[in-house]
């Protein structure tokens, strides 16, 4: 990640301008920023919040120094909008499973979207939507991706801080298991036979799901070099049905390449 070389002094009038933009999403990731409480005041102190509809009415035009983009690209007008935002942004960060992998709404990518539209809306003719829901990087160059559904506010603050003071952000790409073990949670898969995607999913959430006795469902997306084949095979060995394995991979980050290929492969196995 390219970060500014020198620390930007917050006292100066040349505060970096921050924009927070949303596409197809639930707003949960933006809320992580609002949820940062005390740190949010520091953020407001250190940057000029130029565009953040969720937080304030004032909307300043670009260009922006840092733009956080939430949500997936799922409607025709999004394509032009994201290109415009890219042009207006020095540093563009995609935040959350929607912006980095297409989100849960990317489940439509496996079906014909018109069928859904007909089923859900009384007037399907009013609906203008793309056939797929895809990550921001599908359309423009993204400078940094922050994973999760929702993102972790500590990771977000670390990335923003890194940009402000010119250091490398620390966003580990190893497995959720590492965090699970550090916090001392007994593995739910080994001790209870609960299917868990932790060994193929990127850390960052601090293993919340296993800590409350649930398997990880992969919302942080694939870890570095995930061995989905071995894990999926093991899940079958411990009694999961192939359909379960498919559903596990095809989840909040299911359209991320490694998970997509895995769910497709196990689906093929069922056929």
């Amino acid at each position, binding site marked *: 990640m390219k970060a500014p070389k020198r*620390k930007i002094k*917050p006292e100066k009038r040349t505060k970096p301008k921050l924009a927070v933009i949303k596409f197809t999403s639930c707003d949960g990731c933006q809320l992580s920023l609002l949820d940062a409480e005390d*740190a949010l005041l*520091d*953020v407001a*102190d*250190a940057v000029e919040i130029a565009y953040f509809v969720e937080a304030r009415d004032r909307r300043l035009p670009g260009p922006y120094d840092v733009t956080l983009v939430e949500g997936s690209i799922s409607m025709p007008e999004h394509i032009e909008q994201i290109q415009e935002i890219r042009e207006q942004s020095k540093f563009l960060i995609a935040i959350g499973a929607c912006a980095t992998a297409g989100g849960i709404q990317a489940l439509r990518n496996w079906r014909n979207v018109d069928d859904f539209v007909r089923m859900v809306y009384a007037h399907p003719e009013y609906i203008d939507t793309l056939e797929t829901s895809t990550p921001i990087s599908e359309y423009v160059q993204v400078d940094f991706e922050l994973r999760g559904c929702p993102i972790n506010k500590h990771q977000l*603050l*670390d990335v*923003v*801080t890194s940009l*402000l*003071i010119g*250091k490398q952000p*620390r966003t*580990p*790409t*190893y*497995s959720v*298991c*590492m965090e699970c*073990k*550090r*916090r*001392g949670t*007994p*593995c*739910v*898969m*080994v*001790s*209870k*036979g609960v299917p*868990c995607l*932790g*060994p*193929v999913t990127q850390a960052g959430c601090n293993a919340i799901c296993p800590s409350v*006795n649930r398997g990880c469902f992969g919302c942080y997306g694939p870890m*570095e*070099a*995930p*061995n989905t*084949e*071995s*894990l999926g095979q*093991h899940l079958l060995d*411990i009694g999961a049905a192939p359909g379960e394995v498919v559903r596990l991979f095809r989840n909040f980050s299911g359209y991320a390449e490694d998970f997509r290929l895995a769910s497709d492969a196990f689906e093929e196995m069922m056929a």
Partner: protein
Amino acid sequence: MPELTPTIGAFVSIEKGRLQNVMDALKAAGYTLVGPTLDEGAIVYDEIEGVADLPRGWTDRQEPASYRLQRREDDAYFGYVVGPHSWKKFLLPPRRTLMRVVKKEGAFVVVDEEEPAPRYAFIGVRGCEMQAIHIQDRVFLGGPYQDPGYRARRQQAFVLAVNCTEPGGTCFCASMGTGPEVGLGYDLALTELDDIFIVEIGSELGATMMRETDWRPAGAFELQQARDALAEARRNMGRQLDTTDLPNLLYKNLEHARWDQVADRCLSCGNCTMVCPTCFCQDVLDVSDLKGETFERVWVWDSCFSIDYSHVHGGNIRPHTRARYRQWLTHKFASWIDQFGVIGCVGCGRCITWCPVGIDVTEEIDAIRGEV
């Protein structure tokens, strides 16, 4: 009571319930008791108040990638083996702040915030675990650069050890020469029989902690029972490992086809290194506040299975799982000896039980040996 404190090296017997007196004496002496206790679905190490917090009447069934708690038919206090935690959790916590730096009047000042090390009494340290502590002593206290945090916690730790009479399904301490009986280094060591504990006094401090406990010298019959139980345990190990000439075996087979096969299964998830009581690898992070005025240097458990770990100037020296798995196995069973003069594995079986896909170090080594 024949005398107030037993002598070092003595074997005495106490009624099982009297263990509480020993724990009370430890607490009165300012120790924080940590020991086995039931958590969600597993026996973990945590702070305990007394014998009531021990997983009495429970046992653990362990196989590769499988751990299940089960009720015992008796109400033994220590009728299980080791779980997902190890004592490194206390001696070498997963996350430590090494130092803090704050900006004061335009200058950066190092605030040395070394917290006073807790005084732990470890309740229920098994033979393999005692050796694991000795191994980490070599890592952190051997040589010219010692870890002050580790040293402080280690020096004031009290060790109440327990001999294993019922090994678990993935245990192979007998092969590694670390159990089922605890080796040197404890303050007190228990062997659990049907109605009594036999207590071996390992140190002056241990003897002192027996002062408030009603004890008597152990009888010849009781001692024989304890010896028989340990001999039986040695015969019942869940696993075995032929340790003959391990370093050469591994060094000569760095290109063995088995590494490719295991790499197909291995998830590179790092669980084996996290649960291993001797693995010590760490990452050091600098965490800053938004204003760039307060920095913390933080130490966290890392693993040779994470890709970043092997990133050196110019690239990554272990880009594939095959190389990472080989690093782990050869470090534990070969290069550890070159580095610290002792083998890095104590045969506790944790890496086998807690590997999500059940990769078994003994099986991997056997496979390599079988081909040569």
